[in-house]
């Protein structure tokens, strides 16, 4: 007789209130004690499916069985009671609490004034950590801890609630390669203790390495479940995107020209007043892509904002085409030939409530081409402009009057790229240009950045996607805690070396 799966979801349909069909009848089953990968592109429905399993969302249709018994979860607490817990991509920790209090939050006892039994909790946690062979500081406010440790606290928090099934949503997104390795060790340990793990990811390599079986979702539909040992990354990629994709990037060799952007001993403060960029010096030359790799939160955001006029420069200089532009406002920079594809397309690159046409002129709306008498905007010209961008960049939009929020992530990003290129810049900042973007658009955008470089533009690329930086850059810097660990040529280093540098370890070879 076949073993009863620990989790079985049947015919799960989820329609969001705005009419989006996130899941279209998905079956999903997990065996006890396995590490089960859930693979798919952004928007495939992985997270939605798991939020349903963990009680955060309610399915529109479908049934869930735990150990063969049908269950209905009204809340995450119900799921926890059935031994299912989820660690979210965006951590749900109270920054100013220490690890211990974060972990016991919500379980401190009943009654408003009942005393918290800290000692007992500590004991239980220590036992857990000993079993798993990893330690986290329990008495330090979590905001002071590195992301990798915060994640462990999240995992501990879930395990502390005695779960059998642990769901991890894109757990490696924020980790350095070394931290990923350590995480995988923890996962294997958990597996050896009989825990079941569901591992959500869109990274093929990781899924191949850690999982026993993989379920692939695409656009809310189940594509299939395979044994990891019997499949190949290529096959999984095909299942994931529906066609065989090898991101084809052609990059002819090219001599870089004169420096277009020069950054000299730049110091920038972060939101909390800490030094985020600590004395960076570099240049980006015409006809070159200068990449900056590194784990997010090492000063990239602050660096880009300082260069693009959005953040105050504490010390140092930014020079564009020989002109000192330190502290100049964005409008002036755009007129001087800068364009900026920002990392946050929803909150910065677009005004998502406004139409595609209205968004197509953000940052160049003052240009003569759109200006009529009396400060009027010539909407006829704007529409022509928007239509041209949409056509030239193959942006798929319902209409140019539709709000930008009705576009998919990939198309939103293409719209931004199109708009920024239409500024006819000499220097382009591309910050996380393909994050959360579908494969086809990613390929398009990456090739376009190369095209700009071939047209002798200077491109500054910042990305947390190491492959992207390696693939596109002519030269690349690795940033760690606001400083460059090194500036290298991608073809002259191994991924392992870069991995070490991203973790702040300078290569001594």
């Amino acid at each position: 007789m076949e073993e009863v799966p620990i989790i079985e979801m049947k015919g799960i349909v989820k329609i969001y209130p705005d009419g989006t069909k996130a899941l279209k009848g998905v079956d999903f089953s997990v065996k006890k004690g396995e590490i089960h990968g859930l693979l798919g592109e952004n928007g495939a429905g992985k997270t939605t499916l798991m939020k349903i399993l963990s009680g955060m969302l309610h399915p529109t249709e479908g049934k869930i069985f735990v150990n063969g018994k049908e269950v209905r979860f009204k809340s995450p607490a119900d799921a926890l009671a059935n031994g299912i817990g989820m660690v979210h991509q965006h951590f749900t920790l109270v920054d100013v609490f220490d690890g211990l209090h974060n972990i016991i939050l919500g379980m401190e006892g009943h009654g408003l004034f009942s005393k918290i039994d800290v000692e007992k909790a500590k004991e239980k946690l220590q036992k857990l950590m000993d079993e798993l062979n990893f330690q986290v500081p329990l008495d330090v406010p979590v905001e002071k801890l590195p992301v990798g440790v915060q994640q462990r606290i999240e995992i501990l928090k879930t395990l502390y609630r005695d779960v059998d099934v642990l769901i991890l949503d894109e757990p490696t997104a924020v980790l350095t390669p070394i931290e990923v390795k350590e995480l995988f060790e923890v996962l294997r340990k958990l597996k050896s203790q009989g825990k079941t793990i569901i591992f959500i990811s869109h990274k093929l390599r990781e899924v191949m390495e850690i999982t026993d079986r993989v379920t692939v979702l695409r656009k809310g539909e189940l594509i299939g479940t395979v044994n990891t040992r019997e499949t190949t990354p290529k096959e999984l990629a095909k299942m994931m995107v529906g066609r065989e994709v090898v991101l084809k990037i052609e990059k002819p060799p090219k001599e870089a020209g004169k420096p277009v952007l020069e950054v000299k001993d730049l110091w920038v403060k972060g939101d909390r007043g800490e030094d985020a960029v600590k004395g960076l010096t570099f240049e980006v030359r015409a006809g070159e892509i200068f990449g900056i790799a590194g784990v997010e939160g090492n000063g990239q955001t602050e660096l880009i904002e300082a260069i693009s006029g959005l953040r105050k420069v504490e010390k140092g200089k930014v020079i564009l085409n020989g002109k000192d532009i330190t502290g100049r406002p964005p409008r002036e920079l755009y007129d001087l030939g800068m364009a900026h594809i920002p990392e946050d397309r929803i909150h910065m690159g677009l005004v998502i409530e406004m139409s595609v046409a209205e968004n197509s002129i953000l940052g160049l709306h003052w240009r003569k081409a759109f200006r009529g008498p009396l400060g009027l905007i010539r909407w006829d010209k704007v529409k022509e402009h928007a239509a041209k961008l949409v056509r030239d960049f193959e942006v798929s939009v319902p209409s140019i009057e539709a709000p930008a929020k009705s576009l998919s992530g990939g198309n939103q990003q293409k719209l931004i790229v199109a708009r920024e290129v239409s500024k006819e810049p000499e220097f382009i900042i591309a910050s996380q240009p393909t994050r959360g973007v579908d494969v086809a658009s990613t390929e398009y955008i990456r090739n376009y950045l190369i095209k700009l470089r071939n047209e002798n533009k200077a491109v500054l690329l910042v990305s947390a996607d190491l492959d992207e930086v390696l693939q596109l850059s002519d030269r690349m810097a690795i940033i760690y805690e606001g400083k460059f660990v090194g500036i290298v040529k991608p073809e002259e280093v191994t991924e392992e070396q870069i991995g070490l540098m991203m973790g702040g370890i300078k290569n001594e070879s």
Partner: protein
Amino acid sequence: MRVDIKGFTKPLVESLVAIVIGILVGAIILAFSGYSPAEAYIALFNGALGSKYGLAMTLSSATPIILTALTFGIGARTGLFNIGGEGTVYFGAIMAIILTNLWGNVLMGLFGGILAGMAWMAIPAILKVLRGVNEVVSTIMLNWMAYFIALYIVLQKIPNPEDPNKTLAVPVSARFPIIMKGTELSWAFAISVIAALITYYILWHTELGYELRVSGYNERAARYGGINPKKAIIWSFLLGGIMSGLAGATEVMGRPPSYAISQGMANIYGYGFDGIGVSLVGRNHPLGIIFSGIFFGMLRAGATSMQIEAGVPLEMVKVVQGVIVVTIAIPGLLDLLKKVVRR
């Protein structure tokens, strides 16, 4: 003209549904209080729309609240919760009286209203831009300051030597002509409608309006887009000030019989607050505000006949009006709250 039909249908339907629900809830309250809802509503609509006189009263009541609604609407569209319209109305009215008494023509009166409105609204603008003072707090407090300053001026500086119950009146040469004899409807109503149309044009068809709306939706995107959000804040307050200033000016220049401010300011009190409701019902859109302003005018005009013909006491009339307003304003308010929370 670029009018986005699709964008209008949903809010329109929501507002209409809310009107129906509001009227039904009002009916229930009336019924529980022992009045006939049917009789009361017939009296209300009859009074407001059933005769030329009623229609004139509806439109004249709509005149000031369309303008004060524009103040709130411009603020909402640019990310501000500007409730300082109330205080601004007083100064608009006072300045119009002073200037028309010095130079007796309509233009000077309107100019006075605009000037006073801009000057008074510059205060919260400067506080916000320089010191980051939340405009909700500053405009609430400024409303009270305005009230007592205005009261002082009304009582001490511009009393009417012939009639102790009111201020100096706007001279005949500076009054808006009456459209329909025997009613309160003057050409001031046209000023309201024109102001709404100009506001629409500024917000949706000029570079300034574009910058204001981008700032209102998303300050970070505005900064990124080369827009100075501080400039947008100042402009939003100033434009808003103009509208409420005009509300005060047109009220004293276009409302018979007094053409002045009464001693307790009763005849110009409350328009700023009503404007918030009008704007929310009109979805903070200048064109929507024209219609919701007229709807509110209707409630005001119909209240009298509801009182007289259906015997519903004034207090009850106000309760029913309030229920309708709250119900209608809910969708607009929800939109706005969502935006504020997201920030």
